[in-house]
């Protein structure tokens, strides 16, 4: 469990001035492409205001990798993807947000569709992937691990929500991703580093107000909202410091953590 009360302190990088001002002061996310791999995004929601692109990934058993891609605008089937996009937009106002919808009418082929969403994001030049989804199926450990490694070596940052239910949860348990759990608080700039992984970061995700369907807002709790906070911060960081690698991003975040001494 990610427990904010027992985190202790963590030694940050010995940077001369490891300040948040250095990390993302005056940055706005411009030029950074973020994929929200989720239920779709309502581009017209006032807290989202616009998408740079959108694609639906559908299960197609006979197709290559069992998926087909339908580019173009789509609705959010649930509201969750809109919530994540709104959180990212708040932190990184000029980010280029893409909606990659991987939920549909059936859960059949769910993991294949999820992997297809990751594949699309990697192949289409995304810089940050916001992942609120996971699977516990052991047969998908390998394929998803390969995709996560490929993203890592191409300097693509995967931000993954951890699972509240004990047990396997891929890709959030891989070392190549930034795994995030929810902690209380509403300050989007405040987050913790957990020195006892696999959960590495804690960010606002408890009783947070988020964008939802038809222009509405909802008060929600969940690790997925915390992950979007970190995805937004990473987007902002990358817009100011282009080309940082995943391990450099992790190091900067660790140095900026509220519990770093």
């Amino acid at each position, binding site marked *: *469990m*990610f427990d*904010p009360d027992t985190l202790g302190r963590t030694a940050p990088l010995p940077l001369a001035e490891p300040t948040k001002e250095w990390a993302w002061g005056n940055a706005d996310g411009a030029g950074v492409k973020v994929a929200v791999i*989720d*239920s779709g995004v309502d581009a017209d929601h006032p807290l989202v205001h616009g998408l740079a692109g959108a694609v639906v990934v559908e299960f197609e058993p006979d197709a290559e990798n069992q998926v087909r891609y339908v580019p173009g605008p789509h609705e959010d*089937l*649930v*509201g*969750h993807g809109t919530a994540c996009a709104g959180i990212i937009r708040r932190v990184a106002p000029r980010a280029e947000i893409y909606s990659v919808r991987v*939920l*549909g*009418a*059936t*859960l*059949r082929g*769910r993991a294949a569709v999820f992997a297809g969403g990751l594949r699309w994001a990697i192949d289409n030049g995304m810089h940050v992937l916001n992942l*609120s*989804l*996971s*699977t*516990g*199926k*052991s*047969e998908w450990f390998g394929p998803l691990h390969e995709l996560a490694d490929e993203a890592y070596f191409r300097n693509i940052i995967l931000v993954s*929500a951890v*699972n*509240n*239910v*004990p*047990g*396997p*949860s891929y890709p959030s348990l891989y070392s190549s991703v930034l795994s995030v*759990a*929810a*902690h*209380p608080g509403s300050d989007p700039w405040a987050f913790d580093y957990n020195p006892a992984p696999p959960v590495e970061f804690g960010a606002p*995700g*408890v*009783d947070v107000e988020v964008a*939802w*369907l*038809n222009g*509405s*807002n*909802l*008060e*929600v*709790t*969940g*690790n*997925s909202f915390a992950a979007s906070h970190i995805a937004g911060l990473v987007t902002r960081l990358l817009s100011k410091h282009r080309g940082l690698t995943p391990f450099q991003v992790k190091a900067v975040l660790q140095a900026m953590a509220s519990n770093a001494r």
Partner: protein
Amino acid sequence: MVTEQQNDLARLGDAVGPALRPVGHQALLTGIVERIRELFSAAACSVALLSDDETELVFEATSGAGADAVIGQRIGVNRGIAGWVAGSGQAIVVADVSQDPRFDRELAESTGYVPRSIVALPLETERMVVGVLEVLDAGSVTGDTARDLHLLGILAAQAALALEGSLVFGRLGAELLAATGLAERPDRTRRPPGDPELAAIAGAFQRLASAGPAQRRLAVRVLEAVCDFGATSP
């Protein structure tokens, strides 16, 4: 390559599996939702299982407000909070569902209880998505929403394992073929065709398990007579 004989064995296994299923499965499931409802002083708690074609969630066990009306209700996985939880494998708490335009107020009203808040967690194992656990208008056990969710997650993991065991018994033959490497692991949409008569016989065996010795002896004599008749008739 699976032979016809192995397929026959799989069909027999699928039929016999339910007869071997641990007695008290439903009572266990009901017990889980009742305990969770009590623990969290919630208005209601329910478990919905993923349908065979993986397009719907079907309420299997409930406790509390509107419980009887909810059993058997079906909701699509492509819309709303519960569907997202099943699809994403992530838990979520919504403080006021009336603010969600996609909240199915009609369904809630038909049960006689309209909740304000919903906690929904996935029921998932290493082998399958089983369904979703929902708690309506839950109080706090720990005084901390994140800790409450962690506690519920542990309970959901236990419930998912219990349910998985039961589901595997329901398709025992196909699972055995997969386990021995003779066939692909079955998913919900690729079961071998069932045999309703074998299933009925297996069901009768399950009932006989709790019958007295006299009834069992009678059943054996009847079955032997049927088999003898089958062997002598053209």
